[in-house]
């Protein structure tokens, strides 16, 4: 018990200091072996993913300003948390995102234009999870996905797809949610079910400081990582702007989950540098100084310093810039080419089996719409 009820503290796992030196802190010790699995090529991949998605993020915001998207949901500032954790997943794992994890989708094979189609109002989902690295659809009712993820993980367990003794085959689930979403009852219920059934699952909570305009302190007076313990699962708080911490801690907990050692919660301390969405105005509720503090801890700058210390070639850094620019302009080009769905989409796929109410309504609708065509001809 903390001596003072306001004094809840929990160590933050950090491997990469903000200036880019590799200096695992005490809390990071047990995770260093996981970091050591990474090759130089992996480090470079991290950098590439982070730079590319940030450039794409800017392009998508531009598309919104130009009237091409109804909304854009920026991920600027959270790249390390997302890239590191995504890299820790295996092909057989299932990922249940919130709605800001564009790079996680990309790394699992999702075409980011599918996200743009959704935010353009062309679809409610936009992709088939099984054909996109088991990256499930975005969920807009906060924390709902935490329960779907837990149920899915229960199914893996019932299928005997976990703890088979073969790590190449064992499956696990990772679910993303935010500090705001953590206050939803569903988040707590998911943690209860996960602990109860010992699901193969990692809860990845990105504490980006804000739920739209409300600071994380309104959601919780204790570190979110401590809540995990309350529910009965292993939990860690990590420096979410340290891509190595994000990778190593997620890798450990996913490995444990796949091996049948149950669920874990990770709280990644990061910052939403951009607005909540393009409809938001952060100048109304947060201080410039706060933002500046976090910009100074930028995850990309940090990894770049690390790579430079290790003597990465300038040509690599230049290539990544070029790749980012190409990626963004390709996404823009294709986002402008997407086509609106057929009007049939209204009635399609509401039910698996024919439904009398909809059969009648659809027939009426089609006759009604057709009446305009006749009038025109």
């Amino acid at each position, binding site marked *: 018990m903390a001596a003072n009820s306001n004094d809840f503290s929990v160590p933050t796992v950090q491997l990469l200091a903000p200036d880019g030196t590799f200096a695992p802190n005490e809390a990071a010790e047990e995770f260093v072996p996981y970091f050591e699995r990474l090759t130089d090529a992996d480090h470079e991949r991290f950098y590439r993913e982070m730079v590319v998605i940030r450039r794409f993020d800017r392009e998508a915001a531009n598309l919104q300003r130009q009237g091409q998207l109804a909304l854009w949901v920026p991920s600027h500032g959270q790249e390390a948390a997302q890239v590191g954790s995504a890299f820790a997943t295996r092909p057989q794992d299932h990922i249940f995102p919130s709605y800001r994890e564009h790079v996680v989708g990309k790394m699992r094979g999702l075409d980011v234009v599918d996200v743009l189609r959704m935010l353009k109002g062309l*679809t*409610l*989902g936009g992709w*088939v*999870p*099984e054909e996109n690295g088991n990256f*499930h*659809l975005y*969920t807009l*009712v906060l924390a*709902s996905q*935490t*329960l*779907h*993820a*837990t*149920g*899915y*993980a*229960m*199914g*893996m*367990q*019932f*299928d005997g797809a976990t703890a088979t003794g073969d790590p190449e085959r064992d499956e696990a689930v990772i679910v993303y949610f935010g500090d705001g979403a953590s206050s939803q*009852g*569903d988040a707590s*219920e*998911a943690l*209860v*079910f996960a602990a*109860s*059934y*010992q699901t193969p699952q990692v809860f990845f909570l990105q504490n980006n400081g804000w739920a739209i305009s409300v600071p994380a302190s309104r959601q919780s007076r204790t570190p979110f990582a401590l809540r995990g313990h309350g529910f009965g699962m292993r939990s860690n708080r990590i420096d979410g702007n340290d891509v190595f911490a994000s990778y190593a801690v997620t890798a450990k907990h996913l490995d444990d989950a796949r091996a049948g050692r149950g669920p874990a919660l990770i709280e990644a301390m990061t910052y939403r540098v951009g607005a909540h969405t393009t409809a938001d105005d952060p100048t109304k509720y947060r201080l410039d100084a706060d933002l500046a503090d976090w910009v100074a801890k930028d995850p990309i700058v940090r990894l770049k310093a690390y790579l430079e210390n290790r003597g990465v070639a300038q040509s690599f850094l230049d290539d990544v810039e070029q790749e980012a620019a190409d990626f963004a302009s390709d996404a823009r080009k294709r986002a402008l080419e997407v086509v609106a769905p057929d009007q049939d989409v209204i009635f*399609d*796929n*509401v*039910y*698996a*089996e024919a*439904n*009398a*109410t*909809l059969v009648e309504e659809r027939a009426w609708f089609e006759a009604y719409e057709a009446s305009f065509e006749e009038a025109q001809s």
Partner: protein
Amino acid sequence: MTDTDTRPAASVTESGARRTGTENLPLGKAINAGLRQAMLDDPKVLLMGEDIGPLGGVFRVTEGLIQEFGDKRVLDTPLAESGIVGTAIGLAMRGYRPVIEIQFDGFIFPAFDQITTQLARMRNRHEGGVTMPVVIRVPYGGHIGSIEHHQESPEAYFAHTPGLRVVSPSTPNDAYWMIQQAIRSDDPVLFFEPKSRYWPKGAVDFDSEPTPLHATRVVRQGSDVTVVGHGAMVTTLLEAADIAAEEGTSLEVIDIRSISPLDYGPILSSVEKTGRLIVAQEASGFVSVGSEIAATIAERAFYLLQAPVLRVSSYDTPFPPAAVETQFLPSPDRVLEAVDRALAY
């Protein structure tokens, strides 16, 4: 291992065979038999709920099933309705066919969000890429003299939600077959069980599947006035028909069975014959299933009607203390009062 608690270890006994012949069973036992059959037919069917394991549910509808199928197929879940439905969605994505028991009608609302914003839309937002074969069993309705939140009729909330199917059996035979049909459905089904009818017995024919899931059925022929209802109300309507017959009035009684989608065919045919329609329900009348039927019949059969469609409902108040529930719920007498009004037109 999914469980480390203290309940007796469940063993999977040798699978029994399909039941045959005809048996007189209470509705609750008929559902039990239907669940068992569905679990034998498909290993992906699993049950989830509160106290549905060794206790067999507060109404004993799942009695014996954990002993027969084990605790991996009969899950005594944590006590959280949203959690049950939300995890059932994940299980359905994984290929399972979860059948959920909500302990009492009044306790479905913590799961309302998962049912309406998630379960009902999952297939649609996946553009057909997933199916959601989830059944949610809800013991509902009054007449059992119980405490607050234990006698509600919330079916209209769900019938209003696109993507859900909503049904309610009124007889043991229907209960046995409809639960299996609901479980076989690739769409989510809200399965409302009239709890006041759990105990009276009726013949269950294990050999022949009687009627499609979404069909209304004429349960008593008549010629003067058509009366329709679902669940326990069907019993009330049949009692009213007996009394009316003694007074020389012939009521045609229709069991709706399926609230969404609603099969209007038999109702329209009946109204063609009688020209008069009464819709009775245990739920409050304002924005109810009865309102929907009345509006639709008025739209489609205006010239067939010799009187306005009348609704007989519970009052638009919270379900009152049980001491006055008989005044609150539609009785045969209130149905007959409406019959008189319809005939007086």
